[in-house]
């Protein structure tokens, strides 16, 4: 039997909870169900007369679609490379910055700038100012060094590397800041004990530093993977997925299928696959994190 006070508390809690719940329902759950429904239907605005329930047709079509496999491969390469680069560069920078006695504060603030820029701005900035052939900053440097001019975003062999660099540039500061915070919170006496215990600087890094910042590293990897899997705006602004399908990761393929080729049914199925991949990766990473 509930007391009147408890009942009133309960009602109050529901009032507080309800608006957020409704908003979430309308903005995420409903579209998600709609997406799932669309993915098992034929919805192609270029041939609107073929409509109706398609079952698993959209999904089985994927198996024989080379563009899908290409985009999946690009997604794996893009995610893997950007995350590894961010971790390595972020860790390296953090270790370096820890050594400098002054000016850490300024570096921390400077590191935030790329993070707060909108990805679409970053994509455009790189495309017009840095990577543009002939008058971009990078080309200027390369010509000065005698490597000649390159079309960094237009050359199918360079475009993927270019968008990977853009993403890495924007998000490495995040990894850097988190790792730096984690490193500076480590107790100094442990490292002194290790020095007395005859550990070289390399041994101290392997046996003390790395294990102690492992939780932070895993969290950063998880967060960076999720963002890399859902990367869109910067690539869209820089290359639009091209040239051809050279930078067409799953996200961009989904977008192009749905909104350029107007095949909503197939696009929805691709989106569902991306969702499944993201969920699977996050789940396994979290399992890895709690494993120890």
């Amino acid at each position, binding site marked *: 039997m509930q007391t009147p006070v408890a009942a009133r508390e309960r009602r109050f809690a529901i009032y507080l909870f309800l608006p957020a719940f409704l908003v979430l329902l309308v903005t995420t759950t409903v579209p998600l169900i709609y997406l799932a429904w669309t993915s098992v239907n034929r919805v192609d605005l270029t041939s609107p007369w073929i409509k109706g329930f398609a079952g698993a047709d959209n999904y089985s079509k994927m198996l024989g679609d080379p563009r899908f496999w290409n985009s999946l491969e690009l997604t794996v390469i893009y995610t893997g490379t950007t995350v590894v680069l961010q971790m390595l560069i972020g860790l390296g920078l953090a270790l370096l910055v820890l050594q400098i006695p002054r000016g850490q504060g300024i570096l921390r603030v400077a590191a935030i700038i790329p993070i707060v820029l909108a990805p679409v701005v970053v994509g455009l900035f790189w495309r017009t100012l840095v990577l543009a052939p002939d008058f971009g900053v990078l080309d200027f440097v390369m010509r000065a060094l005698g490597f000649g001019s390159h079309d960094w975003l237009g050359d199918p062999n360079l475009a993927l590397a270019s968008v990977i660099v853009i993403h890495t540039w924007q998000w490495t500061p995040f990894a850097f800041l988190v790792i730096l915070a984690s490193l500076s919170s480590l*107790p100094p*006496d*442990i490292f*002194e*004990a*290790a*020095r*007395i*215990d*005859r*550990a*070289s600087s390399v*041994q101290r890094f392997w*046996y*003390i530093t790395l*294990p*102690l910042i492992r939780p932070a590293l895993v969290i950063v990897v998880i967060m960076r993977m999720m963002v890399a899997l859902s990367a869109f705006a910067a690539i869209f602004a820089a290359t639009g997925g091209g040239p051809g399908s050279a930078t067409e990761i799953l996200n961009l393929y989904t977008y192009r299928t749905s909104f350029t080729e107007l095949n909503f049914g197939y696009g929805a199925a691709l989106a569902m696959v991306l969702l499944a991949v993201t969920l699977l990766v996050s789940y396994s990473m979290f399992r890895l994190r709690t494993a120890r």
Partner: protein
Amino acid sequence: MSNGRVSLKKIVKRHGAFTALHGIDLDIEPGEFFALLGPSGSGKTTTLRIVAGLEEASEGRVFLDSTDITNTEPGDRDVAMVFQSYALYPHMNVRQNIAFPMRMVGMPKGEIDAAVQDAAKKVHIEHLLDRKPGQLSGGQQQRCALARAIVRKPRLFLLDEPLSNLDAKLRLETRGELKKLQRSLGVTTIYVTHDQEEAMTIADRMAVFMDGQIVQVGSPKFVFDNPATADVANFIGSPPMNLIPASYADGRIRIGAHELQTSCRVGGERNVIAGIRPSSVRIGPSGIPARIDLIENLGDALLLDLSLDQMTIRARTGTEVTSREGESVFFSADPTAVHLFDAVTRVRIND
């Protein structure tokens, strides 16, 4: 047995404009249990860290067995240290913690295991080897840190207030064990503490630090019986020595209107500080009159607060004293129990 003679020559340590150590000279004999004693902030830890190599001396040199180790890396000095915080590796279990110093030099696994067992046994933590430091009590952590230090058989142990984080009872027990352990290992040990009783009971010899200087070196008994300055006298012994302003003339001192005989044979007149340990204060039928302000009964002894011309003099007496609080008594002291210090320099006068 490896040696372990430590010599510090004119060690100066500056932090910017602040000087933490003003030229320390110290010689520690092989196998000695040597305490660095002094109030907080007097430079004991700094001295220990300079011996360990964790901090660089601004001036001066450090010798270990006639090798100049002033610029040697800590790991190459063959010293082991127990930190005040213990500094155990939190992600390793006790076994891995103790094994760490040997793993780092690539000792074969079989030898490491045997050495870990042996060290753990010496400090009675064999049953805790698979625990992480976070699952140990303070006393167990302290033993783990100790095992990690003794496992290497170093030439020198450095201990920085190793007992200060333990509760009073455990501190007493561990103190005794530490002393026995050091005796059985025979390794030179430098032991930092601010607790004078700890230093008195555990050390073969000690150095008393004050404001970045060593004011006295000697055996605990010698320092207790012959404090070099009034400040050392006040620091060592509990309750602390009574320090009474007095004037001195040819072996006698005057406290206010009263006189007291001393064993000092220095001639002339001067202002002094007379030091009398509470346990040397005698309550009797004659002497200097004073009023009893407070009596604290310790069971086997009484602590009296005597007031004399706005001064408080503490006395530690047997329980046979029957006077009550508020009553007047007479006190005196054996001439040999009166320590004399110069009123200005505070340096000891009698020998």
